[in-house]
């Protein structure tokens, strides 16, 4: 049986189509690398200035000048390019990245996202998250459904400072896949073995659920 994170990642990989340009946020989203078939023509963008990252082959000597935005050594695949930080963010602001995956502290049913600051506790700076959140057409949040104390992270309204307003397309947790729509948070898939009431109990946001069209993952 897959772990919660494996379940999230395996489902998230299905959001990527061949030929797309993809950005993987720091943390859990970076592990999506392992779920992309090596022969799949996808270019992974990293905001420090590279398009076409791939995992370093095990045992190979790293190039000290090649890292991703999380600081891990990487290599590149055919068709890759490297560039300065202004061009890298021009690519983001011009919506040339097709899909980005990010973690979240909180996300709400309007598609607001908070993932960079907990006032008084954690404020290392926003890095590239704000521009990615605001400008990439499809933002998929990957996070645990609840925090380590069991509190809901999928809220009616974010309480923490926002990374960007109304920016989230989809949320994938170990419990559900939810689409942000005009009318609210629509559950697309629910985890194998979980029932709808248990999902609602674990969630603060209002969920729109059409049981006839609900997928399992």
């Amino acid at each position, binding site marked *: 049986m897959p772990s919660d994170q494996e379940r999230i990642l395996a489902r998230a990989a299905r959001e990527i189509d061949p*030929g797309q*340009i993809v950005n993987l946020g720091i943390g859990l989203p970076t592990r999506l690398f392992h779920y992309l078939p090596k022969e799949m023509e996808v270019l992974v963008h990293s905001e420090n200035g590279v398009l076409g990252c791939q995992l370093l082959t095990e045992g190979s000597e790293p190039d000290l000048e090649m890292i991703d935005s999380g600081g891990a050594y990487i290599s590149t695949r055919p068709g890759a*390019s*490297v560039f300065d930080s202004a061009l890298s963010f021009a*690519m983001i*602001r*011009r919506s040339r990245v097709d899909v980005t995956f990010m973690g979240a502290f909180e996300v709400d049913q309007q598609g607001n996202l908070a993932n960079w600051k907990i006032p008084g506790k954690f404020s290392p700076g926003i890095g590239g998250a704000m521009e990615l959140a605001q400008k990439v057409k499809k933002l998929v949040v990957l996070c645990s459904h609840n925090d380590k104390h069991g509190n809901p992270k999928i809220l009616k309204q974010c309480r923490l400072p926002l990374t960007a307003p109304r920016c989230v397309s989809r949320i994938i947790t170990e419990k559900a896949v939810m689409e942000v729509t005009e009318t609210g948070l629509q559950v697309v898939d629910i985890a194998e073995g979980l029932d709808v009431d248990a999902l609602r109990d674990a969630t603060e946001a209002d969920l729109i659920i059409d049981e006839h069209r609900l997928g399992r993952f």
Partner: protein
Amino acid sequence: MTLINQKYTSIEQAIANIPSGASIMIGGFGSPGTPFALLDELLAQGQSGLTLIKNDANEPDIGIGRLIRAGRVDRLITSHIGLNRVAIDEMNQGRLAVEMYPQGLLAEKIRCAGAGHYGFLTDIGLGTEIAGARREIECEGKTWAIEPAIHAEFALVHADLADEYGNLVYRGTAINFNPLMAMAADHTIAQAFQVQPPGNLPPETIHTPCAFVSQVVQVELASSEQGRRAHAV
């Protein structure tokens, strides 16, 4: 955006995406960097009522000069048209609307669109007649002019080398406006003398990453011979 594995196409198909009335950025400073083959195909396909954005108007019988002479261009946003008497005549006769900017401001206005901004604040042109037409604001006790970005629906650019994903490498002074325009248009069509399989171009040598290119076509060297005749050596 076009998927990376669907960008390499024929010149006919690439240009057929452009409707009449489109706004189109055209790379090149003089002949180098002008996408002659794409322009000749545009002439052949017959689109009209175009708005062109190009540093200069080429010369009457090459590049956008042929489109202007054929009456296919309604409006030209440019920096200097001194080498094209037909364009000057068309402007003076009122048949071609011409909007002119200092060259570096034109480049920056295009670059600004490519960077996803609304505009920038400059002191260039203060105290000259171009100042009157612009909105100005005070910042830190000085006056600055607002220069809005210039976007376009399409860009036609010329590269030396490309790969099938649309990564572009320019050469010599054919770089000029091409990388700026590739970023500023919604839909960028690139011509290159060689289109290679992905992986053939070293990552550091790529001037325009494929993310900014919608379609890439391979063209014969000969198409640029048109430009050659125009220059005294």
